[in-house]
């Protein structure tokens, strides 16, 4: 039995299928990169994993059990934006995750419990290189630092699964490379299972152990919404696998161009 297992998973919005017939098994500790053209169900897939939404049909299992019905502390998440709380300093942002667990009524810790939580939070901040910024508010630090903070905040509860939705998409290339290194280090250390949605194929290759490409297999120009997207490629990735990267890069570009073509057809209707 695998860690995460999907069987014939469908997601409809009203009558419109967005995802069709996904079947996938993911082992513990895998780093799954998800790429695809926009509008191809990546975000919907991500919301299913978060349990922000439920599949319309099919089975989604975690350790052989039903998938949870709402977001919880077993699945950490980092979004592209709004991932940290603007009214808390860096240290408070990380500590609050511990306060949620240890103080159900007030969600605040005092005295020695607070000191202990602060120490753990500081250690986590150090591991993402934010020790200096502990007393700064999010609006006082850069976008890259905010994403580091969001990572630290998500990891302090030691989730089994980490969900990343284009976490580095809004960052400068240089900062992004730093973030990749950090991400890899954290993953090697904690060995959580990662799903990362990205539209940067290179990023998917650089970080992932496995790459999923989402696309529509069937396109009906007369009824563009008639079919949903599914997983068209499911590849194991070795780091710096140049040749595969180049091949796939061309492939995805063609696919993207194809679906754009379909979009154009739609527009001309």
């Amino acid at each position: 039995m695998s860690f995460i297992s999907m069987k014939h998973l469908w997601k409809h919005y009203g009558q419109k299928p967005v995802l069709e017939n996904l079947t996938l098994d993911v082992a513990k500790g895998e780093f799954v990169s998800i790429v695809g053209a926009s509008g191809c169900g990546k975000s919907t897939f991500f919301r299913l994993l978060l349990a922000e939404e439920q599949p319309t049909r099919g089975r989604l299992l975690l350790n052989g059990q039903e998938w949870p019905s709402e977001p919880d502390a077993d699945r950490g998440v980092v979004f592209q934006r709004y991932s940290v709380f603007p009214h808390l300093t860096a240290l408070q942002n990380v500590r609050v995750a511990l306060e949620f667990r240890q103080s159900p009524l007030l969600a605040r810790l005092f005295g020695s419990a607070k000191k202990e939580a602060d120490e753990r939070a500081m250690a986590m901040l150090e591991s993402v290189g934010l020790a200096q910024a502990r007393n700064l508010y999010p609006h006082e630090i850069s976008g890259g630092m905010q994403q580091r903070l969001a990572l630290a905040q998500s990891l302090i509860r030691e989730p089994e699964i980490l969900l990343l939705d284009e976490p580095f998409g809004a960052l400068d290339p240089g900062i992004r490379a730093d973030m990749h290194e950090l991400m890899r280090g954290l993953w090697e250390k904690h060995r959580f299972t990662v799903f990362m949605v990205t539209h940067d194929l290179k990023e998917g290759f650089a970080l992932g152990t496995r790459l999923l490409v989402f696309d529509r297999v069937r396109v009906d120009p007369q009824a563009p919404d008639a079919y949903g997207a599914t997983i068209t490629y499911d590849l194991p990735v070795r780091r710096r696998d140049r040749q595969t990267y180049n091949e796939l890069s061309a492939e995805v570009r063609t696919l993207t161009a194809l679906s754009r073509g379909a979009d154009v057809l739609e527009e001309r209707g």
Partner: protein
Amino acid sequence: MKRLINRRPSWLTALLLGLIPFFIIGMIYISYSDARLLENPDDRLLPSAMQLVEGIKMIAVDEDPRTGQVILWADTAASMQRIGIAMGVCTLAGLLFGMLNGMLPYVRAVASPLVTAVSLVPPMAILPILFVIFGLDELSKVMLIVIGIAPFLIRDLQGRIREIPAEMMIKAQSLGASSWQIALRVVLPQVLPRLIDSVRLSLGSAWLFLISAEAVAAEQGLGYRIFLVRRFLAMDIILPYVFWITLLAFVMDRALYYTNRAAFPWLGGRMAKEGA
């Protein structure tokens, strides 16, 4: 030569420029007042500066022989108590019901249509009903302000809460927070400055309701006094009262504004731009 849109006055120039309109209005008033008094020394409509000082002395310094109180202070105390209690109730109601409505879809389904409907009732139209239900004393005046302001605050806060990015609410859940914990640590601190700001902006309406209610039925209060002395055309009292009410409103506005800036450093001056 820079474009007009890029030319900015220094703060001193801005201050002086800002004073000019007030100065002009003062000058126009004095010249009209002089002209009228020259024609008829008993004219009451535009009292001279000396008459205004006399009027102020009578209401703000001398004790009223009948009650032994200084009228202005007694009126101010009565009005401030009413508006203070009413705005306190409004703020608490706004916070409680705004949070419940904003966060819980089931509560919203029940309460939101009612709040919307009530907020559209013109409060002055139901003033007679309030007098019948709550009597002519303090309660009816407080209730008028509450009915006029609270639904607005609830709706506003509800809207502000729903503007909190979905990502942030999901992030909180993914850190294991319960609904209550999210309310306490994520939503409340983020909407408090908004609430204070909305209270600040609704003070103008609150004064309107207060003075209206006092004009209709009261034995004390700033609005009551203005409408009482109106019968004698006592502009030497009405004008200082208007000035005084404006000053009170201004001080309350600034106090809330600076409270917000001092209490919520994480806003990073965002509110300052919106509110000034």
